[in-house]
């Protein structure tokens, strides 16, 4: 699908178990710099499980290989992956009371960039990115996700994406629960990141987002597998026909 460039992210034959249950049953993906992939699939099919396990969630058992720019990172901890340029925007970001957005982001930026950014410079950058996302600067002083509305949490995930500047980002339903203005703002953030050569995978249920963000590749995810891969037109087809017509994994098509 992509050009000759080495993918910023790839995974091969990934299986994920939660306790004894196999939820992800063999997934291959390869994402190049600046490329946007969309993953669409029914509720409970295992999309978030895949995303969390790829990031290294300790509750999941992952088999297969995960690579970032050709480096095998399968057994690395989440923070090691983050420091190598991987990012996950959570479907359900957790609250951390008592920790302000600004102090948390400063620590995260220092960890990921491997160097402390001077406070003044950091504040300037943070406020600029918040302005891009039309966020009230007061959010910098609020506790992380604590009492945030659904839409505010999603904006904060994108703010983190823009501040941490990963090479590869997995966005798990970052468009869910957004009003139309917020959706546009978030889409602009995603496009901005893509134009900076970030490779991206968007897990989404809605064609709506894809009106603003044009994916290069669309995957259909069902029952723990990618059952079909196509271009943007596949998303439109799903919008029209649902998932029923794709029922059997045997119909899975490659690109």
């Amino acid at each position: 699908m992509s050009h000759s460039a080495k993918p910023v992210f790839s995974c091969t034959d990934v299986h994920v178990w939660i306790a004894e249950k196999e939820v992800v049953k063999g997934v291959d993906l390869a994402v190049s710099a600046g490329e946007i992939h969309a993953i669409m699939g029914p509720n409970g099919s295992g999309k978030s499980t895949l995303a969390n396990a790829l990031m290294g969630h300790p509750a999941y058992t992952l088999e297969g290989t995960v690579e970032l720019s050709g480096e095998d990172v399968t057994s690395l901890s989440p923070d090691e992956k983050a420091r190598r340029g991987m990012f996950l925007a959570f479907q359900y970001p957790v609250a951390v009371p008592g920790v302000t957005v600004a102090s948390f982001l400063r620590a995260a930026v220092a960890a990921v960039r491997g160097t402390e950014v001077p406070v003044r410079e950091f504040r300037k950058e943070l406020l600029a990115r918040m302005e891009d996302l039309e966020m009230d600067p007061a959010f910098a002083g609020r506790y992380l996700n604590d009492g945030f509305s659904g839409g505010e949490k999603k904006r904060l995930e994108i703010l983190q994406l823009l501040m941490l500047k990963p090479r590869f980002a997995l966005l798990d339903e970052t468009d869910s629960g957004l009003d139309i203005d917020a959706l546009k703002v978030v889409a602009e953030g995603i496009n901005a990141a893509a134009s900076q050569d970030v490779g991206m995978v968007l897990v989404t249920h809605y064609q709506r987002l894809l009106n603003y963000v044009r994916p290069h590749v669309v995957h259909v995810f069902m029952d723990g597998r990618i059952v079909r891969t196509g271009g943007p037109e596949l998303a439109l087809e799903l919008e029209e026909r649902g998932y029923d017509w794709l029922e059997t994994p045997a119909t899975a098509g490659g690109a």
Partner: protein
Amino acid sequence: MASRAATGATLPMLALEHVAELSSVAGEDRALLALRNQARELLTPLLLPDRARHLWRYTDPTRFLPDTDPTDLTPTDVGPTWRLEEPLSVAGLLAGGALRVVEMDAQARKAGVAVEDLHHAKAAEMLGQAVPPGHGFVEDINTAAWRGGVLVRVPAGVALEHPIRLRVVAGPLTLPRVLVVAGEGSSFEIIEGHVGGDRSVGKVLGVTEILVARDANVRYGLVQRWDPGIVGHLTARARVAAGARFHLSLASFGGSTFKADVGAYLAGEGAEVETAGVAMGGDQQHFDHHTEHIHEARKTSSNLDFKVALTHAARSTYTGMIRIARQAGGSEAYQENRNLLLSHDARAESIPELEILTDDVRCSHGATVAPIDPEQLFYLQSRGLANLQAMRVIVYGFLDQTLARLPQTTRERIEALVAARLHTE
């Protein structure tokens, strides 16, 4: 740990042979000696509290019995030097059974602030007002045998710009006594810091009383950061008069076994008490904190927020008493204790105790004991924070709202200690 506690066969021993000699060598008046003897009487014979009684259910009382006679006069150690880092009204050092006034600034001197050796301060009539003989056997041992004491008296109407700091240094056996007398309408911050132990074994049985007159505003901090060998019991009680405010900050870090009994009597109409505390334990540390907010008068209000974070195999028990007397209608009292467990082996218990004798009150309490949330950890780690750093951030967050309640200097001090503690884990 092997139990070295006395078994049923051998009765615990307590020798207090030289009370009169201790008192006369220290130059005390007869009233003070009488108070010592009164406490000593209560200890003869020595009846240890019933372990079934709530206050002693979690900690063996024999751990606090002195191994030698505390009234036996031993040569006085030279106290360590103390480098002052911030502007203070008064700095007083209690070490080796003696008081040294290290600092007294011009404002405090001009205002008539008194910092005196309690042995000859002629303050017997004020001693025992907040912790009277019979309060408990540990406090009685202190009252009978304390050595090294300080009276801090701030005259009526005086508002001190800088805080008062007291530093109490633990030796092999230390029985310090502190009496703070806040005059009507006075306002000041006072921090009592407990340090020392030199990594050796030692015992500390300390008692502090704070008398807060009408309309005064006292911010008192009790900061315990002993070396690991110390077994200690600290009692602090305030008596708060009408219209006065008392803020108690509690911070517990050190020692191997630490039992604290802190609180206040809201004795006059409209008195307000706020307690904010943090405790951080690790290794095999055993903490047992008890707080009491005792409402004796109408329209009094108290609030308590106590947070405990534990690592390794540390243990913590918290019992929080709110008592509202029949005549204390129109009062309100709130209490919250939260415990964060950072390891599988850490254990915490939290027991609220309410004795409310009137219907005309507003009162609530809450307690939680929870391990660190793995989803929070994963979230922070996914943003590049290594496991340990992520834990630190979560602990900071956990403590933050409580630390935010502390008065300025106390807060800075305690935050620095929290940070130091987190970075040694």
